[in-house]
């Protein structure tokens, strides 16, 4: 069991004082399936290495189950890690690979056998146990890497650092499902680093989004979709991402150039308490083309892309580009249209952060 808390944690690799990981507080609850999502270079791997102990943070604490583990070596923590490229010990058989962490810890050989067989069965490696690990496919090797983590009885969290990068698409799907099954069966904490939003959203119950060394939002996939806490979450998640338009506020109405857009009640007052550039954000999925005279805003149609089961309509609203997801079957014709902004899904961001 492991509840991992990061307290006032930050890390700098010591070049010109820039932080790879800016000071943050974050808690990973025991047994959760987490995804750590963000673009390359945002600090995901740094955070993972700090949790597993490969990296000692420049400041702050890593607390595992209430115990300060900041200074502990990786082997002394009950945390396993699976890397981007499969790491296997080439000269050993699959069995010896899986037994390696146990033998290093001086576990009795009889128990090693039982544990290894149990884990090999769970990961469908049973028929390959006597084979040399070097001849196996990438996905089998990645399973061995995972197995080496799971084989330890004390292991309470497994960290995955983009583990499916080198796996071919079909096996990716199967392996991801396997991970999900293993998680459900063992109930240990999984933290899965990826820059692929689909991978993150299908795997995790909770997604932590990172941007430029900071955590910008932690929440369920639904939270990230419906209430992005930061403009980055808005445009990074979703395809296409959230529409963001610079605007001014007049009470609970947003002014985009000359157009007035109605917002949810009370937003204007809360936004007024903060300072910084104001932007309006709305997901393409929530925008609609107006039917029979609802309150709407006029726009020019610039392009229509038919993507099979839906179309993406690109329109221009007073010079700003806006994308709208239109369901299959709805026809889009002409050069102008009327766009509906549902107030409950039209968000206001002050200084890139959501006004709740």
């Amino acid at each position: 069991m492991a509840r991992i808390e990061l307290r006032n944690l930050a890390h700098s690799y010591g070049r010109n004082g820039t932080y790879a990981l800016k000071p943050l507080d974050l808690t990973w609850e025991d047994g959760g399936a987490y995804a750590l999502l963000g673009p390359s270079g945002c600090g995901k791997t740094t955070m993972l290495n700090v949790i597993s102990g490969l990296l000692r943070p420049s400041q702050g604490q890593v607390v595992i189950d209430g115990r300060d583990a900041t200074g502990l070596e990786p082997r002394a923590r009950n945390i396993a890690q699976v890397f981007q490229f499969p790491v296997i010990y080439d000269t050993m058989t699959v069995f010896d690979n899986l037994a390696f962490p146990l033998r290093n810890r001086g576990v009795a050989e009889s128990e090693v056998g039982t544990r290894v067989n149990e884990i090999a069965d769970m990961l469908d490696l049973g028929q390959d146990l006597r084979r040399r690990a070097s001849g196996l496919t990438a996905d089998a090797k990645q399973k061995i890497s995972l197995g080496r983590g799971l084989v330890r009885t004390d292991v309470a969290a497994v960290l995955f650092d983009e583990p499916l990068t080198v796996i071919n698409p079909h096996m990716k799907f199967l392996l991801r499902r396997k991970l999900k099954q293993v998680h459900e069966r063992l109930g240990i904490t999984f933290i899965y680093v990826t820059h692929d939003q689909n991978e993150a959203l299908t795997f995790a119950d909770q997604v932590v989004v990172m941007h430029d060394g900071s955590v910008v939002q932690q929440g369920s996939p639904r939270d990230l979709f419906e209430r992005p806490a930061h403009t980055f979450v808005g445009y990074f998640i979703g395809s296409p991402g959230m529409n963001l338009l610079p605007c001014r506020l007049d009470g609970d109405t947003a002014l985009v150039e000359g157009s007035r857009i109605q917002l949810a009640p009370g937003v204007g007052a809360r936004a007024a308490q903060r300072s910084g550039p104001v932007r309006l954000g709305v997901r393409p999925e929530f925008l609609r083309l107006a039917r029979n005279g609802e309150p709407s805003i006029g726009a020019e149609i610039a392009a229509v892309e038919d993507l099979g089961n839906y179309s993406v309509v690109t329109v221009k609203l007073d010079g700003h580009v806006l994308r709208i997801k239109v369901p299959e079957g709805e026809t889009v014709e002409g050069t102008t249209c009327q766009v509906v902004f549902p107030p409950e899904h039209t968000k206001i961001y002050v200084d890139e952060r959501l006004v709740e």
Partner: protein
Amino acid sequence: MDKTHDNKAWFLVIPVFVIVAFSAIIPLMTVVNYSLQDIFGPNERYFVGTEWFREVLNDSRLHGALYRQLLFSGLVLLIEVPLGVAIALAMPPRGWTASLCLVLLAIPLLIPWNVIGTIWIIFTRPDIGLLGRTINGLGIPFDHTAAPLDAWVTVMLMEVWHWTPLVALLAYAGLRAIPEAYYQAARIDGASAWAVFKYIQLPKMRGVLTIAILLRFMDSFLIYAEPFVLTGGGPGNSTTFLSIYLVKQAVGQFDLGPAAAFSIIYFLIVLLFSWVFYQVLQRVGTGDK
């Protein structure tokens, strides 16, 4: 679809055949030619069949040189390979210190071979050499021109000094090619430094070590210039290796027939050992039998 029969492409391969013929095949066939004849002058030659081969194979001085050569090459591999790997492991992984180490290691490799022999003559002289005088000063009599054992020690020291850097450089290149994730995984798996060496570093260095062992075997088996300059094969015959003996016979005594037969046997021995080493090293640790 019918295959087009157009053999013009063969003309494009001709330059390669010509180069290989003149650089390898013709000189080798000349040696074969000499090994089968007794030659007194340009127009005075007799075919002798395998006589030179029989003579050479029964030559007890040649047997002595061969045993010395095997002992020498064996010691070279036993010392230089582990020592080179140890140096590579001890070197810093990056930064200016790594560059400095690489430059220092490369120095012995850049010195002409006969100069190396001269350096070691001076270095080990009992009267003026830094090493020779120091050892004698410690009360241990040391003179490579008089005592066979001292001559061997000097030749081995010189050889190790000269060529261990090559093994170290190759091993270092092999070590640097290991992805960081292997070391990280090993830390999480709780592997000891010895386990990291045995299960990660050594297997990953197999390719470069195969090259290192083959190069060191071939080079040490063919060694000539350095011991020739240092000891001239003496004292007695104690450091007369195959090449030195061959040159004594071919140039010193002008026995071209036996020398040619000897050359061919020498070549086949090197070829055979290299092949065996290669086959063994390709299989070791992979589980293939």
